[in-house]
């Protein structure tokens, strides 16, 4: 009963706050990684270099699908903005279903920018089907494909260290976020601007702040406060011997 109630509350709040955000959009707090990302997209077009977006190996049929969908939302915005570049962005995935969606999302971004004919299906690649084979298949891209920035966004585990190492060797900028704790600690150590925890899911909102994206961030914050209050109340009740 509690999960269903929480879901209904989340849907209700998302709807109400989206309407409210349409009237007064508000502002997002500064996250240095997203500021750098927005700047990097512009610079890569000017420099004639490409972006590499690694979406990890999170499948869409399990709990890791959320991070994959967040990565796709960002990919769509990047594809739209870099479609005019001489060097198109490359996206890699380590899961077949995610790979298909990667290609579809890239194509949709190109179509939205009215340059659908410039899309080539090899821009979206499946580089391996296990975590290590995915990393091994992706490692050469920063060095060999004129990449200026690597964006790692999705489900990436400890094997992320290999991608971080490859990016560092190629001298490229690295922006990364993952839902895996081991991967996060590696990206904290290896990226120029780390993204922690739920910041991964805010990427779409920071590149294109639509009312619904802003509303979803507000609902996240509201739920976080509810959980904090529940934890404090539970601790107090335990301390007082209520249960």
């Amino acid at each position: 009963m509690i999960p269903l109630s929480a879901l209904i509350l989340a849907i209700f709040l998302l709807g109400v706050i989206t309407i409210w955000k349409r009237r007064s959009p508000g502002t997002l707090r500064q996250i240095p990684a997203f500021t750098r990302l927005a700047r990097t997209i512009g610079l890569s077009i000017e420099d004639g270099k490409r972006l590499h977006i690694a979406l990890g190996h999170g499948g869409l049929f399990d709990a890791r699908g959320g991070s994959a969908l967040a990565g796709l939302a960002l990919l769509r915005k990047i594809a739209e903005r870099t479609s005019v570049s001489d060097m198109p962005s490359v996206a890699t995935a380590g899961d077949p279903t995610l790979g298909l969606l990667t290609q579809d999302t890239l194509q949709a971004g190109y179509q939205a920018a009215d340059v659908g004919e410039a899309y080539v299906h090899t821009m979206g690649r499946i580089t391996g089907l296990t975590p290590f084979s995915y990393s091994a298949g992706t490692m050469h891209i920063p060095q060999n494909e004129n990449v200026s920035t690597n964006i790692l966004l999705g489900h990436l585990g400890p094997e992320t260290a290999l991608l971080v190492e490859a990016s560092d060797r190629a001298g490229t900028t690295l922006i990364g976020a993952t839902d895996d704790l081991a991967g996060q600690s590696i990206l904290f150590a290896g990226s120029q601007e780390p993204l922690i925890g739920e910041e991964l899911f805010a990427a779409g909102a920071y590149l294109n702040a639509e009312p619904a994206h802003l509303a979803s961030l507000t609902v996240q914050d509201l739920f976080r406060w509810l959980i904090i209050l529940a934890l404090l109340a539970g601790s107090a009740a335990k301390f007082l011997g209520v249960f």
Partner: protein
Amino acid sequence: MRVLTAIIAIAVGILILLGYFFTQAEVVQAVLLDWAIILAGTATLIGIFNLITVHADKIRRREKDGVYSAILIIGLVGAFFFGIVLKPQSSFLQSVLLEGIIIPVEASLMGLLAVSLLYAAVRLMRRRADMMSIIFILTAALIFLGSVTLPFGEMPLIGTLIRPWVSQIWAVGGARGILIGVGLGALMTGLRVLFGIDRPYGGK
């Protein structure tokens, strides 16, 4: 067509979600998930085709490191051929492909990972010499020192008191906080996709 795709995706998403809360919707949920598994199998074949296309292109254009692409394609075709002829459960295939190539290669990559991690930690101070980086390095060093096996047993104080305190209280608390945030983020991303706000299945 795009609108129809969105309607189908949203309807299927809602039906699958309902299956988790109402037993009456479980049958529909099971059927839809079975279809999804078949589609995922087909996606794997398309993915392999994509992999071959990308690497064949690299060979054709005589790109740098194209020899690795050739090895990949030969390996892929070889594994596919022997898998069809000998069946995947054949002991020859298991011992040669799995135990002889795949497991040792992944173990080597795991070994490389340990070196890469250590190197990343050293570079962190050069890249971002702030308070968080110092705390990160100090914590990692403390955990390493507390976990190391010495001839005389655990390192006094660090191994018996500080490491358990850091790893079981601070680290677990922080990890749970991050995971709660990730869970909430995944929930809201899922809802955005469910209601067609984000559409990863294409469309202008």
